[in-house]
């Protein structure tokens, strides 16, 4: 695989990821607004999100019985996953090129990202 080819695939991957995330967030957002009552949103004081909105695994599990906020959070997760997917693809591409220095470099970045996304609430 040539570097030019890698550039093209990465570009497409980023585009598709952002558009998919924006579409899911829009659907969840429309649903949220449709069901929203008169109550004022409370962001003045920090309370933290409930546990089911705090980890990727919890959000994905609750998609079986979706609520608007779960759908939005899933869209945001797709967005966060987009650069991660780019790193995973780079790892494969450097592997195919037998560029072992960059396989190691990419693995380090991937480990840091996994550590962050596996963080427990």
């Amino acid at each position: 695989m040539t570097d030019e080819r890698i550039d093209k695939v990465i570009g497409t991957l980023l585009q598709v990821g952002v558009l998919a995330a924006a579409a899911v967030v829009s659907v969840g957002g429309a649903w949220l607004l449709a069901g929203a009552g008169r109550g004022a949103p409370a962001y003045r004081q920090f309370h933290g999100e409930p546990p089911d909105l705090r980890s990727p695994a919890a959000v994905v599990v609750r998609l079986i019985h979706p609520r608007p906020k779960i759908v939005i959070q899933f869209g945001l997760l797709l967005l966060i996953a987009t650069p991660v997917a780019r790193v995973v693809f780079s790892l494969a591409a450097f592997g195919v090129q037998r560029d072992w220095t960059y396989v190691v470099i990419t693995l380090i970045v991937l480990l840091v990202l996994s550590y962050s996304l596996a963080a427990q609430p």
Partner: protein
Amino acid sequence: MNVAAFSGIVFALSALAGFLGSLTGLGGGVVVTPALTILLGVDLHYAIGASLVSVIATSSGAAAAYVKEGYSNIRVGMFLEIATTFGALAGAHLTTVLPASALAVLFGVVLLYSAWHSFRGRKASAQLPPDPLAARLRLDGSYPGPAGAIRYHVGRVKAGFSLMFGAGVLSGLLGIGSGAVKVIAMDQAMGIPFKVSTTTSNFMIGVTAAASAGIYLSRGYVDPGLAMPVMLGVLAGSMVGARLLMHTRTRALRLVFAAVIGLLAVEMIYNGFSGGIGG
């Protein structure tokens, strides 16, 4: 104010921030947080959570086009992402320890710096001797010019790497892309051509932000009701801005935007010291 009205206002503010941010190259995320906290009284942690997520959307959207055209240097980006992701993790952990007032003051200082930076305009990229480390890591590259590919060397790899760690810390700490620091690290410290520096910075911002996003998520900073209008607004605004960028003169706009940022910065610092933001 009910939820629909609040979301509408947040969307409009974010769209404006994304629009001006992409026209001026300063990025939209950097003004979303002060706008939300100062104008709408949103808690700083919710604001940086929403802003960080929107930063991933705009930077990845912009990076997609530049990567395809061959401007971004993927090896430089990948290598320096080691520094930015470790920095972002450190910054995101610090956010949970530092009081909101300290974050507000630091945010104000970073804003003031970006405003000053865009007033001053930019110095030419540094001319440096090639770095053997760059050769070993195959960082040297080329980008499309009017008359074929233009080749360039990369210098001072270690200095650039250290600066990138700092950029990562700021990004994780304040929920911003810290594109300005990334560009300085590549363009001024490593002597990488400006066009390559800005496009590679955009390319890196998403991964840097993703590294702190996991921590933010687990700490409950990412609220879907707030992040939804922020992310959609900033994305829409920056897409319109990018379209217009081709045929507008941005010098005057840059100055106006820098002045706005400067005002927000002073307000942020004042609120931080007077206890107006958080405890």
